């Protein structure tokens, strides 16, 4: 596992907001009937429950994000991904379900600072003032697909595909350049 490197190896940029690729993150796609009891049980093992529409449920080191009416994304530490896939597959063995490790297929960014949302307002057609805490939004960042949520006070996390991590870093850097704040002060 020592040779695993995230898409941009943690590159960062400090503008009016800080942009950083967040390194390796375990990610698991689950597709199944979200009302399944087996799913609830499987997530309970991670300290999670099934998130409601557009919501995110977090535990200590894990989170479950609602992606679509039959799809969740589970976040766990990168090193735990393989074992968690196995555990979830076991839990869902009797259901019609698909569990897949997508840890290496994605890149995770954190955009932080009091004006973090202003950098993303330039890229994502999202009404940030109405984005509630604990709400996940699947959207696009300029020309590529993205999912984002408020991951802390003044911090937004954004997931995109791994192959376009360089592009996403480029557009985030462009959007966070000092002096280009949308709302001065």
């Amino acid at each position, binding site marked *: 596992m020592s*040779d*695993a*490197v*995230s*898409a941009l190896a943690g590159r960062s940029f400090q503008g009016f907001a800080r942009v950083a690729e967040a390194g*390796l993150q375990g990610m698991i*796609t689950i*597709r*199944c009937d979200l009302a399944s009891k087996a799913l609830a049980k499987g997530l309970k093992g991670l300290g999670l429950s099934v998130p409601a529409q557009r919501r995110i449920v977090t535990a200590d080191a894990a989170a479950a994000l609602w992606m679509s009416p*039959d799809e969740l994304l589970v976040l766990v530490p990168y090193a735990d991904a*393989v074992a968690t896939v196995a555990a979830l597959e076991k839990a869902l063995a009797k259901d*019609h*379900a*698909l569990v*897949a*490790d*997508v*840890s*290496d*297929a*994605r890149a995770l960014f954190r955009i932080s600072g009091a004006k973090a949302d202003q950098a993303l*307002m*330039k*890229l*994502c*057609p*999202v*009404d940030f*003032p*109405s984005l509630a805490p604990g709400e996940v939004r699947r959207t696009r960042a*300029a*020309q*590529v697909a993205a999912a984002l949520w408020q991951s802390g006070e003044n911090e937004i996390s954004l997931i995109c*595909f*791994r*192959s*376009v*991590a*360089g*592009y996403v870093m*480029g*557009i985030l850097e*462009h*959007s966070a*350049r*000092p*002096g*280009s704040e*949308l*709302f001065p002060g």
Partner: protein
Amino acid sequence: MSTRLSRGGRLIDRSKPMNFTFNGKRLRGFAGDTLASALLGADQMLVGRSFKYHRPRGIVASGVEEPNALLGLGRGARFEPDQRATTTELFEGADTASQNHWPSLDFDVGVVNNWAYRFLPAGFYYKTFMFPRVAWKHLFEPVIRRSAGLGRAPVDRDGDRYEQAYAFCDVLVAGGGVAGLAAALQAARAGKRVMVLEQTPHWGGRAPVDGGTIDGKPVADWIKSAVQDLERMSNVTLRNRCMVAGVHDHGHVIGYERVADHTPGDGRPRHRLWRIRAGEIISATGAIERPLAFAGNDVPGVMLASAVRDYVVNFAVSPGDRTVIVTNNDDAYRTAFALIDAGLIVAAIVDARPSATGDLVQKARARGIRVLEGRGIAKVKGTKRVTGVQICAQAGEGAALEDIACDCVAMSGGWSPVVHLWSHCGGKLIWDEARACFRPDATRPPTGDQGQPMVRAVGAANGALTLPEVLADAGGPAADAPAEGPIAAVWVMPQGAPDALRFKAFLDYQNDVKVSDVQLAAREGYTSVEHTKRYTTLGMATDQGKLSNINGLAVLSDALGQPIPATGTTTFRPPYEPISFGAIAGEARGEIFQPLRRTPMHDWHASQGAHWEPVGLWRRPYCYLRTGEGLQDAVRREIRNTRNAVGLLDASTLGKILVKGPDAGRFLDMMYTNMMSTLPVGKCRYGLMCNENGFLMDDGVVVRLSEDSWLCHTTSGGADRIHAHMEDWLQCEWWDWKVYTANLTEQFAQVAVVGPNARKLLEKLGGMDVSKEALPFMTWAEGTLGGVRARVFRISFSGELSYEIAVPASEGMAFWTRFLEAGADLGVMPYGTEALHVMRAEKGFIMIGDETDGTVIPQDLGLGWAISKKKADYIGKRAQERSHMASPDRWQLVGLETLDGSVLPDGVHAAAPGHNANGQRNVQGRVTSTYFSPTLNKGIAMGLVHRGPARMGEVLDFPVGADKVVQARIVDPVFYDKEGEKGNV
């Protein structure tokens, strides 16, 4: 003379002088000036030459409607043509230049067109340059192109940066004049999320210039407190220098913010395009004053009456010492007071109305201003500058009654509400006879998704032209202003102007369209306003007819003898004003013009001299160039090495779609032409995918992972498309089938290890049994290879012993490096996509996009073996049974071998006897893939030929140039290792 007054100037800061140049001349203005006010303040009235006649033109207006004062602005990477001087803020060091003149602004050769005006009527180009046809290209067009056109295109790459931003609100107010502010206050106090966008740097619009009181306070005071109130509200966003460019369906509004036009080079983005979703749009865009159509109304010094008082009050600029005001309404009288208050002279007010009696008229008389009733201007005297006017009876034919000397003419033909935003999404207009204007018809608004009115016009934009009306219409407090008498519609001055006058009475300044042109168009049968617009070019310039449209269609109506509403208006389309391409492109330029997809080994490829080939949004190495090598050298080296030792290919871009569920086998049997449900676990099968019309759309190796899961490999460019295709069928057609899919393309780095030494290399890495017995052809195994979790597929696209190994993308680069290190003594060498292509062609393997083009079915390609006969159905089956698809007369895949060993050009056709109806040679086939094969040391090709497989050995003619024909023999498409022994070891 225009000049700067010693006192006043509401918007300028005299403590901050600014230097700028015009055509190289050093001039001076003040902070707060527009380029136009600074030019006028420096006595530069003449700012350009007209488009067609090269007539001298001066500044006419003070806002977006300005047709003449378009300048080249800036230098080098910041040069931009056609910048409107009236809306561009002055900044220190601005370089400006006039346009459309040669050799100089003061002396222009093209002005000869002016004397020849009789020979350049409407439709001149259509009528004149018809024959001979050849002359158009070589004579007419080059000459016209040189004499026409406005600014020159920039040469350098744009030195600025641009961006876009998204916003959402309940109420978007377009326009920060008194109507907009009043409407915004009302919406904000009701708790709505409000955005107010104002195109200028100032709030309040033109009300401070025109005067009056609101809520008992002078307008300027009320504006100040209204803005303060709005600024204090957290639910309100105020943005100036931000124009609403367009209103689109579902409340989508485009805002164009000029962030740093007035502070170039300060590092901020120059423009920002706002993409706003608004619940309701309030159009508070004001009104634009109309010119009057009299002879010589384009001579520099003839300006709109409102512009004259704007320059005096806002910028302390006097457009002239002695002004004649010509009007058909009371509002223009305000200009007389502004001039006199500034110590200037009003020679006369020429009022076209037989009698004028409003409050402002009385006041003018009381102040001793000479008011001429029932009079008009017969003609303006002067060429580069007004020297006087000839007065006539408005009701007459222009007989001169007297000459009045003056150096400025302030004209007012009434006001046209700015109905653009109301109209962009289909809001209808009504003709208001009393006000002589089109205004929004509130009963026919543009509608939103629920059929609700989407735009509401308020204030002057709604036809409320006086201050009390404006505030009442916008829901603001009571306002007071002098009562105005009625306007009289005046479209031509004098009413009976003869040809000589109409030839010089301009409607559209920018495109040089005169009253006579519109009347000629009507005589020639142009009854539709849209046709007349295009025939005469009225309103087709960069100002989009802001000054000319209403006057033009009124003249047209008169010529057609019908009322104005019967003629109607032309269509209002976004953008309201030209916006920059930079803003439209936003961040998408340079490195981030388009997403570039990178594999985990991308940077390594770049460091090894990769010559890139775009594949979808990926870049794949076409080949790796070594010092001194050409592309062909590199490709041949890579092929020989792979065939003789071992090659590495980055195959990470291949699509990898996981399909799982109780119905997955049944689903894949429908997706693919072959049977996938019977594929045993642990095995691989090459599969073909067709669309509903039977045409081949993708191919790849399908892998049975477990009892209920399959991994489908797609082409590199096809992954997203095929995944969407699968989901489409699952979600829309077979929604009750239990199948889930996941696109895992990017989860894995995939490395193809190809060549006689491939197995040895894998064995050196160790960890898995990859022997012929343990891992035969078309099987796969999972394990740990070289310490990395891996799936090893024994598949081959080259004919060689070959493995494709998928590992987690995060370890892809480390895994790749391990092969390079371990394989040094085995002759390991990476190869690119061109080597891949040549090797597959040597083996007769087809390539999606080469052998297929959307019209080819698998049967054409000799792939009948991959079409299951046992299945009741698969996507494309029914289509393939149509008579034309099943016909033996189709073009089918064959190999082609040139008789001389040369390489056929790609795409060339095989000639057949005779000619078709168009006199072209008949054809009987074409080349789909063609390469030099270093393995066979000759050209090889594949092609589709009429009944090809039945014609083995025949020689075809391929005309490849004017007189050159290459002959090639039809052969088996498998050129190399027909028995397949190389890979089966």
